[in-house]
């Protein structure tokens, strides 16, 4: 009998724990007329969004915003699982440029077309366009981005190489740059030319685009894979040769390259405005300069752009509060400027953007002299958006692996053919 009593007692204790836990998490859902709590998810450190959330809460004391950070590499998959699973625990989330079509097709975004006139007035035109799909507006722009060519003045001087021009009209070609990079290495630089995001479509799309190879997504619905044309093959052969010839190291991954430039080990580095942070925080700062993103000889200028947009999950149970928050982060000039305060990245609100441009030159004068003007001309003339294909997530994954294979010595034609077949197979199922 005794054992039965013990088992029964344990059973009761276990059920009590389950019920207690269920009550605890249930009470967090809140509701009623009282204060509203909304949750935002993104892929950056909480410190990045803390000023935005604080400023918003100050203006709207009845709304509390909780930020949840999801690691960047798993971000799209977690979105798929949580928004796809109709998780009412996510109200507002950040949607990557290029992913809007894909997210909208899956029903992961709330239609925000009511803001269309307002956002066209308040934000940079290209960033609004990136959030349109099927004639509707699905997210509000928050940040945009661009790439610069950073160069190490001391290493170029030691090799007797002229500094590249800061004028967009006079941008360097990848071919000349490779020759100069090798000369710099011969004169003592450990590495010649590095890319910030080695395997990411965001940065590498610009290479085939400059060679006339296009984005890789063609057809009316942008669901026909085209990554085996001459532009893609030639540009990727050039990219692979950087690693083959030792101009860039193979074992260093995306996000780690900037540390090599910041440490004075590389002659050239292609990175975003945010790359300034590690460069300025390095143990001993390198003497560097900034130039426009290069292009291929005989090709067209092409530079990556776009960044996070702010969107509302259709599963939200706090739609009005969520709308107030995204309005503040995008349409409100002050809110939009605060959102980009902790990261060096251009905000998309026209007023916040011009404010950002005027401050650019002073980021680290005299090294950053002319950076504001360059930012403007680059965003106007050579920015290429990611294709708004409904199959963007698959494209990013498949091509990311192809870039990695090419970087590690895989045959370019074979790798791209394999990637094209795989991607088309995935897209055909959509």
């Amino acid at each position: 009998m005794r054992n039965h009593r013990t088992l029964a007692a344990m059973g009761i204790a276990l059920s009590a724990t389950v019920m207690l836990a269920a009550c605890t998490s249930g009470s967090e859902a809140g509701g009623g007329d009282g204060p509203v709590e909304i949750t935002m998810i993104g892929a950056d450190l909480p410190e990045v969004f803390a000023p935005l959330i604080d400023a918003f809460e100050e203006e709207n004391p009845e709304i509390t915003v909780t930020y949840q950070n999801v690691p960047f590499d798993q971000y799209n998959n977690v979105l798929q699982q949580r928004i796809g699973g109709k998780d009412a625990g996510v109200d507002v989330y950040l949607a990557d440029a290029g992913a809007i079509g894909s997210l909208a097709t899956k029903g992961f975004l709330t239609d925000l077309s009511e803001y269309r006139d307002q956002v066209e007035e308040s934000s940079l035109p290209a960033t609004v366009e990136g959030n349109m799909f099927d004639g509707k507006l699905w997210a509000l722009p928050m940040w945009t981005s661009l790439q610069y060519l950073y160069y190490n003045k001391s290493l170029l001087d030691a090799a007797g190489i002229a500094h590249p021009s800061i004028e967009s009209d006079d941008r360097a070609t990848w071919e000349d740059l490779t020759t100069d990079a090798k000369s710099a290495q011969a004169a003592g630089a450990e590495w010649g030319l590095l890319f910030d995001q080695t395997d990411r479509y965001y940065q590498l799309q610009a290479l085939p685009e400059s060679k006339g190879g296009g984005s890789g997504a063609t057809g009316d619905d942008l669901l026909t894979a085209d990554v085996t044309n001459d532009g893609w093959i030639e540009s990727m052969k050039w990219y692979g040769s950087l690693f083959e010839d030792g101009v860039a190291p193979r074992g260093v991954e995306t996000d780690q390259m900037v540390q090599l430039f910041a440490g004075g080990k590389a002659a050239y580095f292609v990175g975003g405005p945010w790359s300034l942070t590690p460069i300025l925080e390095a143990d001993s700062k390198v003497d560097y300069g900034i130039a426009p993103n290069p292009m291929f000889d005989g090709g067209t200028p092409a530079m990556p752009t776009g960044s996070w947009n702010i969107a509302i999950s259709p599963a939200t149970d706090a739609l009005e509060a969520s709308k107030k928050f995204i309005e503040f982060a995008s349409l409100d000039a002050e809110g939009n400027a605060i959102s980009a305060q902790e990261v060096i990245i251009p905000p998309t609100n026209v007023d916040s953007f011009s404010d950002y441009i005027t401050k650019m030159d002073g980021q680290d004068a005299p090294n950053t002299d002319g950076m504001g003007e360059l930012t403007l001309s680059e965003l106007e003339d050579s920015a290429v958006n990611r294709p708004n294909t409904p199959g963007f997530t698959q494209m990013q994954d498949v091509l990311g692996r192809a870039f990695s294979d090419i970087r590690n010595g895989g045959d370019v034609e074979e790798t791209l053919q394999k990637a094209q077949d795989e991607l088309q197979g995935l897209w055909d199922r959509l």
Partner: protein
Amino acid sequence: MALPNQLATTPARKFAVTLLAWLAAIGFALPLLWMLAGSFRTGTDIFTNLYPLSWKLFIPTEVTFDNYATLMVGEFGLSVANSIFVTAVTVIVGLLICAMAAFALSILRFRGAAFVFALVVLSFLVPFDAIAVPLANLFRTWNLDNSYLGLILPGLANGFAIFVLRQFFMNIPLELAEAARVDGLGWWGIFWRIYLPLSKPALIGAGFTLFLFQWGAYLWPLMIGTEPSKVLGPIALANLAGQFEVDFGAIFAGAFLLTLVPLILLLIFQRQFTESLASTGTKG
């Protein structure tokens, strides 16, 4: 398979075996040492000393404690505390559940025992990752997301731990249980007073299985517990890499701290753990 001491029959062979053992040990230790060295240097220092390979890879030129200081102010400290709590509850409650199940499956005769055991074996043949997504959706509808219970529950009943314990219990002479029954001890008493004390190595082995499942869990907490107050260590570690800024020094320090806990536990329970590996299924 011959054991090292069976191979080392002559001084020359002994030397060769020792040398091989040391080389293997160094091979395993090098990445850990690099991680430890990296935790005391800045991000730039870590990567600028990667090439060419030299002693500088393992000895920081300038030692800094900033990385550990960074970890103290962020969510990392709380996440380690969360990980320890979640793992400790999983191991204690999980061991009890698994041991009870193993006891029932090895000693008690009931209808369908073979079928239940087959289910248990099947459960550990299906990778957890394969069922994680639908399970996470279920947990969310039960309001178990962002709760300790939600993080702990999937780690409690572990098919492999039940299997290992059952095999061990089967090797304990049944006469002991029968004698105890004759003397008036109930099943619970037999389990608690006879089987558990005799099964320490197996319990430690099974405990490690539960521990490692929970301590290294990444996918599950990523889907079910990203609220700052419930974040676990591995997620907090991955969160140190923002899209625009990656604090490599802090990542190295965090990775070292997260490795330290299993390392210490293994050092303490090394003997029992090896015993459990050696004895499970072969003891007779």
